[in-house]
């Protein structure tokens, strides 16, 4: 049976340079075509990528998108199969450090020239830019941004607690939760219980306590920071959050609780900006809840970055190359990013897009403002729970510890901190 590895084939070419003139020539000679793989198939995700495809076709391109429904893992299986078959898509969804990892197994396109032409680098958060140019050259382009630690407040629960101030620090947050509990809100926290959900509780806690410690421990995996007091404090905060949740939620999706959240039986939710779209699509009114940046002990917003992106795989076909250039230009285009974010509820990657106009919600405006402030104060960090801070293997090892801690109340914060450090060592 002809079973051999494909490494030689895969590593045959390194990142090759495609000069801009070649692009231009190809573009004029052929109809641009794009083969793309993503997991965006349903709801607003599906609608947004469909709209992007329409724009691509309006510019004279042929749009060949192949959605792989389900978990990211299945999308990656498909991508891996295509790469092993020597037939990668011209572009595919991929995010965070996985961009660097996958770029080692197949040649990618050097986008430096197109990026420079669009002046894109100046308007992208520096930590984010780094992820998309792993070898020093742009090979992938971020498309939209979410913050994973936005704070959603239920209007009715606030009324029950007789509170109107949005909590700024974790101490404020804890006070408000106690007030809600006292005011007759049975469960002050409305989160779900999936693995990313548990991860989000932890990253929101740690980054809010100390963005510096988050950067050192979670993004840079510094041993000293992983054993530092902030980690224990974060786990202690997570325990409080878990204790305020309905234990019955199990591993359900956060959307299970939306009704009780709106009705004030649950008070707060630490969730990505996408929850706004979910609430809206479920038919709830925007005035029934408030969105604010997640708690931050130093008072300045902390932004946990989660960005979706496209990576571009090297193809020899002239029409695909032309399609890649067109796609890259579209993804960086402020109008396109505006269109995309207005469908999905995210915010644009470009920090120079004006969100004051129509089509944006207050939540989105606040998120964008928080991002600007966070970048200015160096408090925009990469989300662990949504695979932005570490490669998937490391992320999963860390989330194992976190989700076990959330679900098992006999584990002490000190123990959890030790286990987290051990998990990091084991996965290195």
């Amino acid at each position, binding site marked *: 049976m002809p079973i051999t590895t494909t490494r030689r084939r895969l590593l045959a070419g390194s990142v090759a340079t495609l000069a801009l003139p070649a692009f231009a020539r190809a573009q004029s000679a052929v109809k641009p075509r794009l083969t793309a793989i993503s997991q965006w198939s349903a709801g607003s995700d599906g609608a947004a990528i469909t709209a992007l495809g329409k724009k691509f076709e309006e510019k004279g391109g042929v749009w060949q998108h192949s959605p792989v429904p389900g978990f990211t893992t299945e999308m990656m299986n498909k991508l891996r199969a295509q790469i092993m078959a020597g037939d990668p898509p011209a572009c595919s969804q991929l995010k965070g450090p996985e961009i660097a990892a996958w770029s080692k197994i197949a040649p990618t396109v050097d986008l430096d020239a197109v990026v420079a032409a669009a002046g894109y680098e100046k308007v992208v958060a520096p930590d984010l830019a780094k992820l998309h140019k792993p070898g020093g050259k742009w090979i992938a382009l971020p498309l939209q941004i979410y913050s994973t630690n936005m704070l959603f407040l239920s209007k009715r629960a606030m009324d029950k607690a007789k509170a109107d101030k949005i909590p700024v620090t974790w101490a404020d947050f804890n006070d408000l939760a106690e007030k809600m509990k006292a005011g007759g809100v049975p469960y002050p926290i409305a989160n779900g219980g999936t693995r990313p959900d548990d991860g989000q509780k932890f990253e929101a806690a740690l980054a809010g306590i100390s963005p510096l410690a988050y950067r050192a421990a979670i993004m840079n995996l510094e041993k000293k920071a992983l054993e530092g007091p902030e980690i224990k404090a974060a786990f202690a905060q997570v325990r409080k959050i878990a204790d305020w949740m309905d234990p019955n939620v*199990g591993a359900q999706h956060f959307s299970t609780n939306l009704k009780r959240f709106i009705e004030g039986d649950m008070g707060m939710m630490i969730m990505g900006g996408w929850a706004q779209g979910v609430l809206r699509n479920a038919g709830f009114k925007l005035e029934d809840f408030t969105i604010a940046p997640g708690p931050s002990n130093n008072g300045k917003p902390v932004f946990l970055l989660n960005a979706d992106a496209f990576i571009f795989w090297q193809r020899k076909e002239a029409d695909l190359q032309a399609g890649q250039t067109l796609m890259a230009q579209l993804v960086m285009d402020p109008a396109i990013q505006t269109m995309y974010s207005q469908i999905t509820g995210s915010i644009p990657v470009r920090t120079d897009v004006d969100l004051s106009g129509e089509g944006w919600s207050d939540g989105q405006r606040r998120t964008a403002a928080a991002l600007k402030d966070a970048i200015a104060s160096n408090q925009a960090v990469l989300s662990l729970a949504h695979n932005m801070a570490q490669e998937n293997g490391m992320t999963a090892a860390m989330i194992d510890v976190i989700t076990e801690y959330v679900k*098992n109340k006999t584990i002490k914060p000190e123990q959890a901190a030790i286990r987290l450090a051990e998990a990091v060592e084991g996965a290195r």
Partner: protein
Amino acid sequence: MSNAAAIRPGRPALPEWVRRLPEYLMIWVPLLLSAAHLISFSLWTIWISFTPSTLVPVSGWVGLRNYTAVAASRNWQIAFDNLLLFGSAFVVLSAATGLILAILLDQRIRGENALRSIFLYPLAVSFVVTGTVWSWLLNPGLGIQKLVHDLGWTSFKFDWLIDRDMAIWTIVIAAIWQSSGFAMALFLAGLRSVDADIVKAAQIDGAGPVRIYRRIVLPSLWPITVTVVVIQLQFAISTFDLVRALTNGGPGIATQLPALVVYDLMFQRSLLGRGAAAAVLMLLILLAVLLPYAAWRYVQRRRALHA
């Protein structure tokens, strides 16, 4: 075979093997393809388990490092313990459920066709769907517990799904629901092939129904029971979609199972080498179960030959 050929009436002198080429091809090509894919895929996996492969297969040699890493991981240890518990509990309970259902259906009751279809239909539905539906039914805030609370019995508690120690039993429940229809069908088939004359003779001798079941019917089901156990074991070991949709290994990592760990390592964590090592360990567990069965079959066959 040779004497059959010798008796054949005279035909144009084509060599025997040419004449029989089509049948050889029809027999051997599919069987050899099947065997070849099983052997080569297994060997490939064993090979990969000794390489440093991560995202894609690569060559290289890391010795037993992948194995020690898997064996040392909490996920695998929990998965292994769970497999022992889940495997034995599920196999015994689903066989028992299947047997009880079969005996009930065998009582010449009205509506047997409909009932049989009801017990069999879960086999027709995809595990992803049933896992999801069970995750609602078993969730204390959504499903059975809430229903009973709403009916007024508010102290009722059925929250195994969120209980670390009991969550594995929710998988047992869903798996029994999904697959004991198959056991039922096998047992029902067995019950129906019990020799009616012997039963009649026993009845004439004045034996009651319980006694007839204990002395005549159940002993004759023994070979079927072995088949049921083997098929359910195969189900237990390869249980994947159901758990992924029902608990996804949670609460925390309390309901990990080897098949889940293999997939997680290979494709979620992009640690192909380690995932392959876990798969090989899983195959070894399988062999530990199957070898006794094969030995039993062998002894049985020898006995049949000598009888």
